[in-house]
């Protein structure tokens, strides 16, 4: 296959100390309009899987433990 995986710094940070995804919480994943967050099955924590962010903040505002922080994407900063 002629494909490459280009890495990129994503705008959404999840504090793994605070994230309770391993207890079944999926709030941030559920509310993201662009469906770019996911739960890492190894760590049991939420993370940004796709760098396609509208920095709209439902993930951050609706997180029950305040684990999510959204930065302005680098290209706009």
């Amino acid at each position, binding site marked *: *296959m002629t494909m490459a995986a280009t890495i990129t710094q994503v705008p959404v940070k999840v504090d793994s100390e605070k994230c309770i995804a391993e207890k079944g919480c999926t709030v941030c994943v559920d*509310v993201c*309009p662009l*469906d770019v967050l996911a739960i890492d099955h190894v760590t049991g924590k939420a993370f940004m899987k796709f760098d396609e962010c509208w920095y*709209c*903040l*439902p993930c951050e505002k609706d997180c029950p433990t305040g684990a999510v922080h959204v*930065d*302005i994407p680098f290209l706009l900063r």
Partner: protein
Amino acid sequence: MKRIDLEYDLVVIGGGTGGPMAAVKAKEQNPKLRVLLVDKANVKRSGAISMGMDGLNNAVIPGHATAEQYVKEITIANDGIVDQEAVMAYAANSFDMIQELDKWGVKFEKDETGDYAVRKVHHLGSYVLPMPEGHNMKRVLYRQLKRTRVEVTNRVVCTRLLTGANGEITGVMGFDCRTADFYVIRCKAAIIATGAAGRMGLPSSGYLMGTYENPTNCGDGHAMAYHAGAALANLECYQINPLIKDYNGPACAYVTGPFGGYTANAAGERFIDCDYWSGQMMMEFYRELQSGNGPVFLKLDHLAEETISEIEVILHTNERPSRGRFHENRGNDYRKEMIEMHISEIGFCSGHSSSGIWINAQGETTVPGLYSAGDCASVPHNYMLGAFVYGKICGVNAAAYCAANTLNELDDAQVQAEHDRIEAPLLRTEGPTPFQVEYKTRRLVNDYLQPPKVTRKYQIGLRRMDEVRADAAHMVATNPHELMRAMETHSIIDCAEMAARASLFRTESRWGLYHYSVDHPERDDANWFCHSLLYKNAQGHMAMKKKEIEPYIVPIDEKEMDAYQRLRVVGEAA
């Protein structure tokens, strides 16, 4: 791909603003009606008002404005190209909707007497009602969906409509963006409420999802309406908005204007005397940007501390709450300096301009059983409240249509063709990625379609777009999420071609910057005082035709007609 077959009376596509209202009103009309609301995101936080809204931009409230005044204002702001009956249907129902939203728990600003605190932003009348606590809008709507027992399916991307022997709606197709399950939903009627086509141009930051509109709103509805045979109106009347440079929030006339903020040039001087978003306002903005007086700024630094704090609360907690964070990074402070502004990428959005799926005052498209509401439908300058009012109109009328019609058989050939179209990117292992094709398409939109519009550039743009379309037929998706981006890219390419064809058709200039044609710089009322309609012809190609302006029900005086042409501050060269 697993196939899931469903059957409803009415399917509402899009759970943002107009969609939930349509579904609720259809159920209120007939609680037994089987109504499904489908969203490609989650209705709790989907659409343009994902994080709420900071105000009503077009409230027609007795004592402040009349429906006739509003129809007149929008007719003039839109250079006469309006179906006044459709604008009137909004205006006449505007206040009832405000009262209903108020009853549902939406908080509007009121004065000490309990009256709505309406502000003047438009050129002529007063229609702006702030919502300092407008962040709970989606929660209010969700409660109503629960109350009326509307069924909701999230994360399903609708891609095509099914039609019967007489061209009528028979179903809706799409896929789940997490499982790639293929959905075939049989129904009597459908309402498209998919919002703007806001992912057509590329923001100047180069970040694909840094669009003014919620990037989920990429023109899926426009594309599926076109392919089902519906006409689209005045697509050459683009949406272009004045925004904070690099940040996709409005600057913003509606919020800061009533507090004394304004758009200024580099010298801190006003150059337009009305910040209400119109094509002519954007033209003046563009001219100032390009002139030696540019760039353009949002000026608040002359205001009192308590005024600026109030503005910050509204702007940084509603609609686009990451704005404060953006300013903090840049070291911007409204108190100390003016904030640099720029113009947005292009899009289709009737909320702010007037292009979209053609509908009449009943919310009907040209396809039987197909309705459309909100930013994707053609009623001009409709904003959030217009989406609610037309959501209601569509919901009520679609319920009546369902009562009078039966379910029809589905055409297997159409279902198979769409199944194969959706599945194809998942089966490939070689080819361009959706990201690459989308980026290229939108870069070409900026290169060739962004006004000023030049005929030769548009012709080249169309040729390049054909090449991209050919490349898009080989896109690869390695998972259902990428498949969603791939199918969205097809919609974006369709919309870009529609924008180009509609713009080439109207050989005049109108709506200020929205349709500024360099080769036809003058307005030509003799030949172009009409709507333009884009539709799929018998050969399956995009075709254009003129549609006469419906007789005015609110007469406009000759002298008033030019009010929006005189926005530039007197004393400066236009």
